């Protein structure tokens, strides 16, 4: 066990954890931030995506020791009140069905818009294509990102 200083959603935390503990479990189990979802546990599906220094990372395969000192943003910290353009667009375009992967989708989209405020369909496909949605909400995800890009 070791002690780590984490900056999550603008708040400083000190956590005691194994060096090898994935960031996902630190967020969910130690900090109680259950908005970030576990799905494959192997970095394949993207449901657990969070921002680390504005880069999208898969928290299930990101070790806590590599997350220390970085600026981590989870779905809970994307906006104070759920008013981020992506969140508003996600509601307007009725993207979510079961919704389980959507926090990961939204955080991945947030990283895309930070780098590329006006993405084309191809840009979106390239950036979002490996974040999987079993409900098949891809078309609406793309529409919502375009809608949010009008506002960002």
């Amino acid at each position, binding site marked *: 066990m070791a002690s780590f200083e984490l900056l999550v959603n603008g708040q400083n935390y000190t956590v005691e954890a*194994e060096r090898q503990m994935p960031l996902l479990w630190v967020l969910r189990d130690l900090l*109680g931030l*259950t*908005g*970030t979802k576990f799905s494959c546990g192997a970095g394949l599906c993207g449901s657990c995506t969070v921002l680390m220094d504005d880069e999208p990372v898969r928290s299930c395969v990101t070790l806590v020791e590599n997350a220390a000192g970085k600026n981590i943003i989870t779905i809970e910290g994307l*906006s104070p009140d*759920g008013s981020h353009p992506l969140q508003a667009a*996600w509601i307007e375009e*009725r993207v979510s069905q079961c*919704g389980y992967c959507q926090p990961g989708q939204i955080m991945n989209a947030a990283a895309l818009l930070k780098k590329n405020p006006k993405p084309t369909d191809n840009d979106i496909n390239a950036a979002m294509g490996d974040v999987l949605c079993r409900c098949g909400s891809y078309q609406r995800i793309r529409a919502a990102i375009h809608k949010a890009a009008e506002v960002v």
Partner: protein
Amino acid sequence: MAESMNRRDFIKLVGAAGGALVLAVYLDACTPEATATPTVGLPSSTGTPEPRPPYEWAPNIYLKLDQDGILTVTAFRSDMGQGIRTATAMLVAEEVDVDWSSVRIEQAPADRQYGDQQTGGSVSISTYYYTLLLAGAAARQMLVEAAAQAWDVKAENCTTKSGYVIHPDGATKIPYGELVEAASKLEVPKKPKLKDATQYKIERTSLGHWDAPLIVTGKAMYGFDVRVPGMHFAAIARCPVFGSGYVSYDDADAKMVAGVKQIVPIGDRISVVAEYS
């Protein structure tokens, strides 16, 4: 229903029984569960009259109304993205006659009163359509009766609109929230009358998932997000080859991991129980 009943038999049975079966389900579920639970506020020490206690009225197992006129619908089926929480709440809200913005949804606990609570077969609405409309209509009828008694007019001359009971004069009105206490003392009607379906405002519209704002902020609670005090988590390690099992296992390393409590073999798999997931 017999477990061996096949889908074809099931369809025939439902077809033969029609609406009466649904109504019977409704009345069984409705009558014995009517509750009114006043929550007594803190006693006043200033000598001023005590404020009215917060009051929540549950005329049946599908809904409750509070003194602020908020309608909470109990979602008793599992939502896997098909929107059944929203759809069932829409039916109840339609017949209670409140604005959609006054609706909240709570997931039901596992309870035999609700019957089969799983998801499958696309049958929730076809099975429970009238149950839910009648549950809402019963509440509305009681609210109207409570208002009619307060005004000393005939209930059939009163109407409702968006969370209010309207007086026969067409102008005077009482918000539902002010009627829940009186309504809760009335008998639950056995055969509530449904609204004229041509007047429906919610039922035939497309509102989007009520849960959408919760989903996009990470607040939606899935089974895996539930935490109870002292809770432990178990992960199951399986042989990667289908149909096979393990020959032996060495749990020495696993036991060294912080938080791991126990290694439990279960059949051809190994379960690791830990404080964390």
